[in-house]
């Protein structure tokens, strides 16, 4: 038997990182999302797919505490308190959670970056928000992260508005990951980017998420994105989750009529 053969496998007990139960949110007569429940484990990447108006962005906004649900709960494993309903936290506690343990990567980098602050500042600001004070260390960490997202160190003092869309998106990712969050939310992370730039960004995200063991919830309409990034998939339509499971299982053996339509509508290249 070679040394590589792992003869013992201990089934680890899983303590969930986040649990959503019966989450619904509507806007007057218009349904956002309806009765969504799931459990996210640490280090797990969940993809949420569906056409525009399916409720996936509403769901993401609720899960990331940017929007309150009408009914239902979202619990998160707080570092010192365990599973807690995020909408019952005090405002300062929720802000601290969002700033330290979470990251939010917006579709439009302008929503997630400070355009009038240098690239290095955008990253360093996050570190200062969690208590870093040593200028040299903040700058070093900032440069390290620019390198990780493949931005040239010579651009550290430039403002993001002088960057291309792909560079801005990578900077936004650095800004979000520098505090080592346990969970990141991503809304169409490759939306609006050239295909060649998308591939680079996806590969980068894939590497970082695996290397750091970060859990992620990724909303996209692009099935190729979830195929590459997500362990699990939820397919949404008219506000409801119509199918969920392992990503490759849902994409290769879809059962719900809508999922079948979605998968069969993708042009093969």
């Amino acid at each position, binding site marked *: 038997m070679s040394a*590589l053969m*792992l003869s*013992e*496998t201990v*089934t680890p007990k*899983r303590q969930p990182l986040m649990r959503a139960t019966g989450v619904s949110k509507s806007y007057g007569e218009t349904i956002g999302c309806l009765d969504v429940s799931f459990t996210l484990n640490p280090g797990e990447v969940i993809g949420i797919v569906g056409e525009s108006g399916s409720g996936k962005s509403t769901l993401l906004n609720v899960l990331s505490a940017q929007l309150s649900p009408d009914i239902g709960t979202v619990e998160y494993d707080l570092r010192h308190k365990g599973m807690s309903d995020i909408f019952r936290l005090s405002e300062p506690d929720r802000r601290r959670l969002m700033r330290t343990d979470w990251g939010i990567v917006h579709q439009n980098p302008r929503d997630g970056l400070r355009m009038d602050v240098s690239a290095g500042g955008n990253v360093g600001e996050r570190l200062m928000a969690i208590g870093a004070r040593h200028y040299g260390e903040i700058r070093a960490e900032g440069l390290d992260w620019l390198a990780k997202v493949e931005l040239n160190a010579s651009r550290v003092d430039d403002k993001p508005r002088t960057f291309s869309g792909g560079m801005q998106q990578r900077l936004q990712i650095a800004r979000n990951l520098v505090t080592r969050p346990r969970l990141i939310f991503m809304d169409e992370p490759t939306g609006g980017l050239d295909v060649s730039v998308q591939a680079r960004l996806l590969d980068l995200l894939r590497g970082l998420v695996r290397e750091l063991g970060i859990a992620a919830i990724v909303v996209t309409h692009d099935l190729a994105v979830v195929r590459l990034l997500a362990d699990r998939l939820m397919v949404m339509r008219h506000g409801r989750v119509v199918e969920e499971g*392992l990503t490759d299982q849902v994409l*290769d053996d879809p059962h*719900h009529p809508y999922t079948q339509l979605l998968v069969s509508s993708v042009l093969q290249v």
Partner: protein
Amino acid sequence: MKSMISVSALSKEFVLHTQGGARIPVFDRLDLEVAAGECVCLHGPSGAGKSTLLRSLYANYKPSSGHVRVVHGKDVVELGSAEPWQVIEVRRRSVGYVSQFLRVIPRVPALEVVAEPARLAGVPDAEAERRARTLLDRLNIPQRLWGLAPATFSGGEQQRVNVARGFALDYPILLLDEPTASLDAANRQVVVALINEAKARGAAIVGIFHDAEVREAVADRLFEVTAYRRDAA
């Protein structure tokens, strides 16, 4: 010998909702046991359901009914009812799968593609890479290609990278979907040697091999998938 895969009363039927709800029954109440150190060749004409069965053993396809049990460390996991994270763990450590085609990941170099499964299973980087180099070398992938992403490789080269990836970790269970399809005779022999080495260390192997020579060199028995058609006697 110890049973590593146990399939019982497995049925699979596809329902195509986009095509008027057409039903395509593939197999019905299929049973299969595969022991450690054994290589079972799925047999039958094109469309018999060989790939469907192989994919069901990897939980890539979901059974309509029945069970697929695989040995996972000290546990036995039933793939149909397992949580997604459990299936991911089973795939990470216990069940390897070589698909017909390499799913290319943009920008990731061949060496990294091959070393990745071992690294994800917790093998130290240096050891995973050493193993990847050995496999790429045995499969005659020129060293100048190792640092390049396989997207631009020829079909045969991509398939050999895929095979190397599948053998990068000593999985207790290996599923092989036509691993020699686009390979020349010399490389077919390398794959035959890899399979026989895996058998010798006790791996349970299920494969689809169209090439008669390869089949004879590796298979201990043939398994006729068509015997489990609903219309079969």
